[in-house]
């Protein structure tokens, strides 16, 4: 079973995304902010990370930078899920390890599991 680390600071929205991933058969761990998230990455060993961009107390960029600074972790595909999709291009986020951007304003429940499957190693 593939493992997905979901980082979403909107509690109810996070539960909704979590439910769609669980029902698609993924093992999911959800974090609401970046505090302690690297410990979760180490202990949970996600195959894919799905993260919001603007988070409580931070953006997701410090996490992405941290992941990119480790040889093994830099290989974990990251999916950005954001309401700022109009302002962000995949080209701008590729250096941060992002393989796909999902627009929160137009995403359907099946889009997230489909995107995860697409980027799985």
């Amino acid at each position, binding site marked *: 079973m593939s493992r997905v680390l979901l980082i979403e*600071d*909107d*509690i*109810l*929205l996070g539960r*909704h995304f979590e*439910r769609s991933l669980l*029902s698609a058969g993924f093992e999911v761990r959800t974090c609401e*902010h*970046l*505090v302690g998230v690297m410990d979760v990455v180490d202990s949970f060993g996600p195959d894919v990370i799905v993260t*919001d*961009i*603007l*988070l*409580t*107390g*931070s*953006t997701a*960029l410090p996490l992405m930078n941290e992941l990119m600074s480790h040889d093994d972790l830099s290989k974990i595909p990251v999916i950005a899920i954001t*309401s*700022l999709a109009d*302002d*962000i291009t995949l080209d*701008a*986020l590729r250096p*941060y390890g992002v393989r796909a951007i999902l627009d*929160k*304003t137009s*995403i*359907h*429940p099946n889009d997230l599991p489909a995107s995860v499957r697409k980027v799985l190693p």
Partner: protein
Amino acid sequence: MDRGVKDRVLTPVVIAAHELKTPLILLRQLSLGLQDESLDLATRQQLAYQAQLVSERALRLTSDITKAERLEDALFEMEPVSVAGICREVVDELAPLYRACGRSIETKPRRQSLLAVANRDLLRRVVLNFADNALQYSSPDSPVELSYRLCGDSTLRLGVRDYGPALDVKTLDDIENRLSRAEVVKARPHSSGLGLSIVKKFAEAMSSEVGLIRHRDGATFYVDLPLSRQMKLI
């Protein structure tokens, strides 16, 4: 990319649109979830209830935006207001939303009843905004606390304390500085800070001040109000 996101020009309309985007995104997702026929009845009822709570939250925001825009034309009755009563009302109103998010909110009981000179509606909106903002920064183990205390002889401080993830000093400095100046309060990263800007306007309309105390494990947003002497006459 980082600069691009942070430096966008935030006009009031853009800010309002951004703030309303969040509950609308959630409402849309909840609606899509409700269309999933494979979900059991209990889950569907839960989603419908969450949709109601999110709608009420969005409606509070639209009501606050309208109120803030019309502040200059309005006259506000200032009267002795029980801050304990305001705290209880806010806790009662937000408790369902907190529960739905697996969080809790409470008011610290206090033996002494204190009255502030304030406009009841505006004060309630100020505290609702603080408490709504704190939801995002609370943890399941630590309730958000509403409390009040005397500050000197003539000021009553009503605060909302969260125990969420510590914010970096720069972010806190930014909020603190902007709270003390007449400009849009750009709050924590996920937020445009519209709520805090509105709070600042409401507080100023009551000749009150809002501020922020940083803690190692969270923050307290507070409003300082003139203490009513009415109780001393009883």
